């Protein structure tokens, strides 16, 4: 495939992540921090986010599986997930965490379990989509092209 075509495909794919609300402007800020001295910066930060989130999701699953749910503990995990997802711009994960916290406050176990399923779904979706994004980026670079810059106000 021609490099220009691959770049176009990458650009369209990146835009779709923002248009679908999976990512917000914070992710662009992250991308802007990457330069030649640190070409793997975004990948490293996002990988650390995935590691951290996976652990939090496991902790949440286990905490909500107890007969007597410790809602303060659940809220604390959701709070951490909200902070890290907002920091990398994983908007839909963050928004689900906001709803999740209201159920923690109400001590609504059923609502919490529903939110856990939803947050897992959003997490795996953004993870899969970001992995595809990096694959497309690698293909462009391997073909000798550069990664096209995407402006937040361009969509």
């Amino acid at each position, binding site marked *: 495939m021609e490099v220009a075509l691959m770049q176009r495909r990458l650009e369209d794919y990146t835009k779709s992540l923002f248009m679908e609300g999976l990512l917000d402007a914070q992710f662009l800020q*992250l991308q802007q*921090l990457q330069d030649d001295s640190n070409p793997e910066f975004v990948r490293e930060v996002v*990988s*650390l986010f995935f590691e951290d989130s996976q652990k939090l999701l496991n902790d949440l699953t286990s905490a909500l599986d107890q007969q007597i749910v410790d809602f303060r503990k659940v809220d604390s995990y959701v*709070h*951490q997930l909200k*902070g890290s997802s907002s*920091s990398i711009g994983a908007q839909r994960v963050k928004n689900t965490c906001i709803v999740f916290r209201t159920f923690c406050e109400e001590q609504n176990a059923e609502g919490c379990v529903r939110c856990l399923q939803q947050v897992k779904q959003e997490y795996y979706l953004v993870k899969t989509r970001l992995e595809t994004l990096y694959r497309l980026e690698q293909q462009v670079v391997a073909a000798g092209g550069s990664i096209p810059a995407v402006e937040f106000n361009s969509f």
Partner: protein
Amino acid sequence: MEGSKSSIIEKKFNVLIVDDAPGIRMMHNALLKSFGSNVETQVAENGKVAVDLCNSGKYFDIIFIDKHMPIMDGVQATRKLREMGVASVIVGITSCDTDDEVKPFVEAGLNECFEKPLTREKIKFVFEKFHKDG
């Protein structure tokens, strides 16, 4: 990226980043470094490490500190730092979104408190505000 790495901030700032999440530490460090070579950074993975660093005589102009951390959280660390007489500007960075959650953090001795995510705009605001004050 906006501006060049050497010219954005005129005053030198020694900054400590305190957060238990490695990805967030890495990101906050890069955000601060993007303001140029006048910004020196150091990281700590919890409040106790931050307190120990200040106890050892290390001085920071600004400390960006998370609220929820293991071992010693941001509220306890801020209170301890103020008790020790640490005069650094302390900026809380938290995922808390209600006044009730933020209040104890502010009352522990913060100069500023921001909701996550930390952005260039928030950092710029802090640099400008405390450059004038300092």
